[in-house]
């Protein structure tokens, strides 16, 4: 399983959209979700419609970008947690210590989903490399350095965990996988040292991202993103 986690870091195909367009869409979707969630909408149909619109919009844009499968895989994991949350809601409803109605429970789940969709979009669409770039550009260089150092050796750590867990499972049986802790602690320290070694000999590579890829295509996307925010705001206000 941990080996598969390592492969999650491989966002093999680059996006067709420039970084600015993707930031605009993600910001727009997040703002849209926040406006709907915090506007105090009581009508279930309105929340349903908002959720459907958001999902269709994200699906369409990722389908064009060829990253839909990656996005849906990400959602699978997250919705496992949403499902668990729903179970807790249901339990608290049945025991009378939580929400008063089923509609309220469903509204809660849908509003959570509204917030999760754009967050998953961000996780699918931005590489750690691009996040580091953005952090550096907004003056958070130290944070960017920490992020890059933490993430750069993470796939190696996942592969180490996978190998250690398997070795110990065979050595002692599946109940004693925790025994690999000494090795993993040591390996984490060594990887920290390794990062320092890389930094000492080579320094950090310069980051270069494509802010705009296809001018016309990116402009359309940015225009749509801004229009979405304005339209949603106007619809809620009036």
């Amino acid at each position, binding site marked *: 399983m941990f080996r598969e986690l*390592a*492969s999650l*870091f*491989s966002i093999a195909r680059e996006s067709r959209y420039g970084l600015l367009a993707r930031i605009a869409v993600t910001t727009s979707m997040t703002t849209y979700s926040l406006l709907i969630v915090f506007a105090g909408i009581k009508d279930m149909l309105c929340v349903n419609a908002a959720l459907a619109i958001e999902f269709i919009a994200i699906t369409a844009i990722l389908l064009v970008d060829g990253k839909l499968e990656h996005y849906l895989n990400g959602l699978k994991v997250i919705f496992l947690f949403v499902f668990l949350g729903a179970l807790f809601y249901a339990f608290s409803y049945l025991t009378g210590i939580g929400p008063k109605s089923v509609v309220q429970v469903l509204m809660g789940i849908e509003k959570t989903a509204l917030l999760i969709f754009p967050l998953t979009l961000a996780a699918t669409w931005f590489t750690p*490399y691009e996040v580091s770039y953005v952090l550096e550009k907004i003056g958070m260089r130290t944070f960017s350095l920490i992020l*890059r150092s933490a993430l*750069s*050796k993470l*796939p*190696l750590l996942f*592969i*180490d965990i996978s*190998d*250690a867990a*398997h*070795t*110990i499972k*065979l*050595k*002692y*049986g599946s109940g004693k996988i925790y*025994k*690999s802790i*000494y*090795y993993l602690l*040591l*390996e984490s320290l060594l*990887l920290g*040292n*390794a*990062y*320092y*070694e*890389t930094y*000492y*000999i*080579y*320094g*950090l*590579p*310069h*980051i*270069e991202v494509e802010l705009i890829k296809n001018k016309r295509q990116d402009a359309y996307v940015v225009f749509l993103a801004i229009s979405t925010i304005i339209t949603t705001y106007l619809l809620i206000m009036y």
Partner: protein
Amino acid sequence: MSSESVVLEVRNLKVSYYVDGSREKTILKNINLSVRRGETVLVIGKSGSGKTTLARSIIGLLNKTQNATIEGEVLFKGKDIVNADLPPEEIKYVGQNPYIYFVEYHLRRDLEGYAHRYYGEKAKEIVLEKSRFLGLEHLLDRFYYFLSGGEARRVAILKAIITNPEVLILDEPLMWVDDENVLKIKEIIRSLRSMNVSVIIFEHRFMPLLDIVDNVYLLKNGILYRLDKNRLSATQAPEEQTRHNNNAPSMSSRKILSMKNVVFSYDDARVYEFGDFELSEKELIVLLGRNGSGKSTFLKLVSGQLKPKSGSITWHHRCRTGYLPQKPIAFFTEITVMKEIEEVCKQSKNPDGCRDNVEKALKALGINDLERSPFSLSWGEQVRTALALLGYSGVYGLLLLDEPFTGLDYYDRYVITGILNNLVACNGVSVIVAASTMEPLSCLNPSHVYHVNNGRLVPSRDQHELSCYKSIALKIKDIYEGAVPCSEN
């Protein structure tokens, strides 16, 4: 030697560590070394002799990453660099683990980002030019952690030469490298030589490098001695012929497992069609293949870590499987070797007998201090300890060993082959060994050899006629452990 041509000079270098907080342990006592422009130098020495310590001291890493005291000088073009904040750009170092030298996952991004600091807009061009020079262009769009050991090693060297260094230090450049990649790395070293780059190589598996190095040094008891290269070359003469007839097990051997039409894939690009395979009791099977050919994947299928996409794996006679991963350190879990023995033997039907057997085996293999931490043992000692636990405890009936010979000197390799032959012949254990190099195979007595070629398992029909390197191993042991054979440099 004209002093003008000397680019790097180590003078009276002494390195000590503080052990247990206060006790000082001297690793390097008095090291003197001069390296000329364009010279290729090989430093050999047994495990734990201080080769990596010396390599890291030269680049200035040691006093920054470890609690070490360094005395003496390391002069690069006459300037002392041992206490510099950063190493000079003209000296580069590629350590034992090549994967650590990449920050970005995507290799092209990492290399171009690094080159950008020196060449600005020309970075892409330079990276392309250097990668073509080393024949690595095809790897640029890969992710660093998916590279095989040999590939990662070559790309790490590519990164090191982007800034045209004058000195390149390579620590165990042949570790995890298959026979074909050994030739490629030799080619790279030859090319660097033609560019007048001085190369210092620290290597256990040095035989393939002897024809490309100018001088050989032995690091022993903290002192560097110059060795006569011809003395080592002479050890290459075949003195002992071993014929492997792919000894099939006797008909009475029980079948342990069989695989039928097994196919596995990580993704669409990497499909392994292993086909059919059978394993019986008391068999020693060798899987021989290049880095990335699918040997480790096969072992993981046998051990159950991975499930086949199609085909079947049937166990006819279930037995406990023990696994030694590529990094032997991952096998250990306890604070001392003794506790390792106790934990493994708890699973035995006869714990006392198990403890006795393992302790005897460890003593015979030169592991005498059982209160030592297994994590502080040298690589070779870790492999020997793990094999004693796996093979002589009586707990495991099938051993899966992933590259057990890598990172070992010739004598350790010879010892390990002896253990494996003995385990199968006398202890009734079945063993599957994955190896990427032919060398150790020469001293093994396998029941079957399979070539793993792009995920296909092909039974070897050859009758291997290889020189068992027993004489080489013993001669090298004598050089490492015997009386000082040569003059101090």
